[in-house]
């Protein structure tokens, strides 16, 4: 509760500061202080309960899982501000408004980590997405940015429409908006009340909800907006979209399935014949296939990262597929590993003059510390041991293994992970093994020492989490 209210308040504070504070450089610092307050309030809530006593009529449910995800999102946003805050100032005139919009996105993420009611899911998704539409189009004079924003807005609204239809159908089928608790549904359905008998309405609603959430997390075949939007948006905002927002959408997806489909999958198989496991498996295979294969043929690192984020989404879908305790831990660890690595890569990318693969040629000679950090981030995304990404993938595979005889899916996933090495390593090859055409500066301006130190520190954190993953999972008492 703290996170929701405080992030909205902080958004308003940022808007006010754009009027009252005229020093451009101060906005980032105000935002950082605000994030610190937000983090403290969130941790306080995890330990002692919320500051605000508001009766949400069980539409919102603040459990350890959700609060821990809030912490992750806030910390990742903090890292994001530290690394790319100065780039945000360069996007356009309304710097403080951009920070305000990011706080509103955090508000939406906080709602999504705590929703217990389908209406709140809708509200959370909308609050998450609408600021992003604006942020995508932040470069008002850039045609690609405008196109990306319009595309995102239209397709996002369309998918939200589908979501509303799905929610309406579910209400029609079950008579309630609440996410069901898993354990109470028995297999025979004998002693269940009327709202627990399965109907086509509920299944249809669930399908539409799945499709609309699959859109949000850019799972194939609902991924078509991702490359253009990620490519057209200013790199700083792509970074935020690809990391925190995607993680939040996945948490929403996971909560939905834990609440609704986990219990019903067995019944649905029996009554209607929709095998949720197979449906998700097909979704996963399509996503991994399309994401990886198209990423291999890209010439531009930014677009490659957009497609690779589709492939990473495919891996995160393993958690939604398996729906057990390991899956919940795994999705949190994946959120941490993936977000930090993505923020790190984009922090460097947003400063590059030329974002094609050739633009990285010879970076290791001119900026060895940055090249080293970038290598660690890329290795983490590939899933090499000693980086956090390895344990993230390990948890996902472990979750699938625990859920039954789906070895084929694991083998497919793992083979595509090997394919992913090919495009991530192309960047490493450019940085270290190729030489630049002529000695030119890869970056728009020389990076400050603070930036270098921060980036190397982030790389070391990823290595640390890669050796001791429990440090993330134990630390905040989840």
């Amino acid at each position: 509760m703290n996170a929701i209210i405080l992030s909205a308040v902080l958004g308003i504070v940022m808007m006010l500061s754009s009027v009252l504070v005229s020093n451009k450089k101060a906005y980032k610092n105000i935002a950082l202080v605000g994030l610190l307050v937000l983090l403290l309030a969130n941790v306080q809530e995890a330990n002692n309960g919320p500051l605000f006593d508001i009766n949400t009529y069980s539409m919102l449910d603040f459990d350890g899982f959700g609060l821990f995800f809030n912490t992750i999102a806030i910390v990742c946003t903090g890292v994001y501000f530290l690394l790319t805050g100065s780039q945000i100032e360069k996007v356009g005139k309304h710097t403080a408004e951009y920070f305000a919009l990011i706080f509103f996105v955090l508000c939406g993420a906080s709602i999504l980590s705590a929703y217990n009611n389908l209406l709140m899911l809708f509200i959370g998704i909308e609050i998450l997405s609408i600021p992003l539409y604006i942020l995508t189009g932040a470069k008002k004079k850039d045609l690609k940015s405008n196109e990306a924003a319009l595309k995102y807005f239209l397709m996002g609204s369309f998918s939200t429409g589908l979501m509303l239809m799905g929610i309406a159908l579910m209400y029609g089928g079950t008579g309630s908006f609440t996410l069901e608790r898993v354990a109470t549904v028995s297999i025979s359905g004998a002693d269940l009340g009327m709202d627990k008998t399965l109907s086509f309405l509920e299944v249809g609603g669930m399908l539409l909800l799945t499709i609309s959430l699959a859109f949000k997390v850019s799972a194939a075949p609902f991924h078509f907006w991702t490359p253009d939007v990620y490519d057209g948006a200013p790199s700083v905002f792509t970074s935020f979209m690809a990391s925190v927002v995607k993680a939040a959408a996945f948490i929403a997806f996971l909560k939905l399935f834990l609440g609704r489909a986990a219990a019903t999958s067995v019944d649905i198989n029996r009554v209607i014949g929709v095998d949720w496991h197979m449906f998700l498996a097909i979704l996963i295979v399509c996503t991994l296939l399309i994401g990886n294969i198209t990423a291999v043929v890209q010439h531009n690192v930014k677009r490659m990262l957009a497609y690779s984020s589709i492939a990473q989404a495919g891996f995160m879908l393993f958690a939604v597929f398996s729906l057990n305790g390991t899956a919940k831990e795994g999705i949190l660890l994946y959120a941490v590993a993936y977000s930090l690595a993505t923020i790190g890569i984009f922090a460097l990318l947003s400063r590059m003059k030329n974002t094609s693969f050739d633009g990285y040629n010879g970076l290791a000679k001119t900026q060895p510390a940055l090249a080293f950090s970038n290598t660690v981030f890329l290795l983490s995304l590939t899933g090499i041991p000693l980086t956090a990404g390895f344990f993230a993938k390990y948890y996902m595979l472990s979750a699938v293994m625990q859920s039954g005889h789906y070895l084929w899916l694991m083998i497919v996933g793992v083979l595509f992970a090997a394919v992913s090495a090919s495009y991530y390593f192309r960047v490493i090859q450019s940085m270290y093994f190729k030489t630049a055409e002529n000695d030119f500066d890869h970056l728009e301006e020389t990076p400050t020492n603070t930036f270098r130190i921060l980036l190397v520190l982030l790389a070391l954190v990823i290595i640390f989490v890669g050796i001791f993953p429990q440090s993330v999972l134990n630390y905040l008492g989840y």
Partner: protein
Amino acid sequence: MLLVLLILIPLLGGILSFFLKTNAAAKNIALLFSVATFAMSLCTLCHKGTLSLQADWLPQLGSSFSLSLDGMAKMLCLLTTLTFPLVLTATRANNYENENSFYGLTLLIQAGLLGVFLASDVLLFYFFWELALIPAYFLSSRWGGEQRIRAAFKFFVYTFAGSLLLLVGILYLYFKTADHSFALQSFYQLKLTVQEQNLGFWLFFIAFAIKMPMFPFHTWQPNAYEQSPTPTTMLLSGIMAKMGLYAVVRWLLPVFPVAAHHFSHLIIVLSVIGILYASLIAIKVDDMKRLVAYSSIAHIGLMCAALFSHSEYGLQGALVQMFNHGINVVGLWIVVNVIEQQVGTRKFSELGGLAQKAPTLAILFCVMVFANVALPLTNAFVGEFLMFLGLFSYNVWAAAFACISIILGAVYSLWMMQKVFYGPLNAKTELATDSSGAVNFSLIVIVILVIVGGVYPQPILDLVKDTVQTVLVK
């Protein structure tokens, strides 16, 4: 403590090297650290019996930081720590740019390799298995030949895909262990049905087959070996190839005995095909590095076949040969390196008559060639004899076909000797001089080991006895 030091010394040396300023300092520091590691491993030989260490790492996952050294591991540890100083001494004359990074990465490979041989926890083993790969990839891609980027990339992706299948296999077995742990003993105590064994066997074996490499997963090897800088190739073929064989003995045969029995025929057939195929190609190639690379495939194919022959002799022979081949092939590569550095070419068509200019090198190379052919009095003969004994007891025809490889091996090895060292001098080889003291030192050490191993192999056989017993019991 000793075990941790074995991994820690090269790791620290590697990281330290990256921050050194001068090339000479990098060379010396690397040599110093590798000699220190060698001293450590000699200490482990003094302890009879198994050494082990266990520390908590990831208790929630069931994985602990446990290292152990039984006979086979001690032998491989000795091989690793012995070859590194020899390689570093023999290639002192090589010059590369950014030598601090070069030697840093080389020492990091040593840390990874030692970790693989020491780990007795499957997840830790997997960690080191992958970690040994990354520095090798960087070394090949940065300092290699013309097509190094593609060759190293193929090497990496191929091996990585295999390793990921290994991860799936590990997870598959992990959930079937009684106490949900990754420890070696838990895996040894698994009771698996035949179906489960078959599936798990292939998931594990593909990774090991790619690493060795075994036909038909060998296509990455000739290019990768040829395009890598020669010191790295020495390490790849001398030690990294043994990782695959070691993993078969440690993690595959005891855990999947029924499946190993079931598929041994297929594997032996593939290995024998690989031996003959590689030997025949070795006769035809024009480049010294490629010849030694294909010869390596042939030797390793024989070791793989012997491992699956279900006989004590075969197993013993393969283990002994792991050590012997490691040393012999490093000797061959050292000579290749010297020739490449001095004359500037590795092609047989452009070489000839070097014996007139470099007689010491010629003599030492002659011994290495005889060892490659497995002539009696060389260490390789002991290993090959035992392996053929084992293979013969399994299937006469397999042994017969494999024996043809001895003849083919003699053909290409002696042909290489003839082509490079004898015959008329030409314009390029006119300028060659005899090899330097450092190179001679390394080669003489290897030659001594070759002859001593050929005449008195009992110490090595005794060393690996306990592993042979453990595996055979299963």
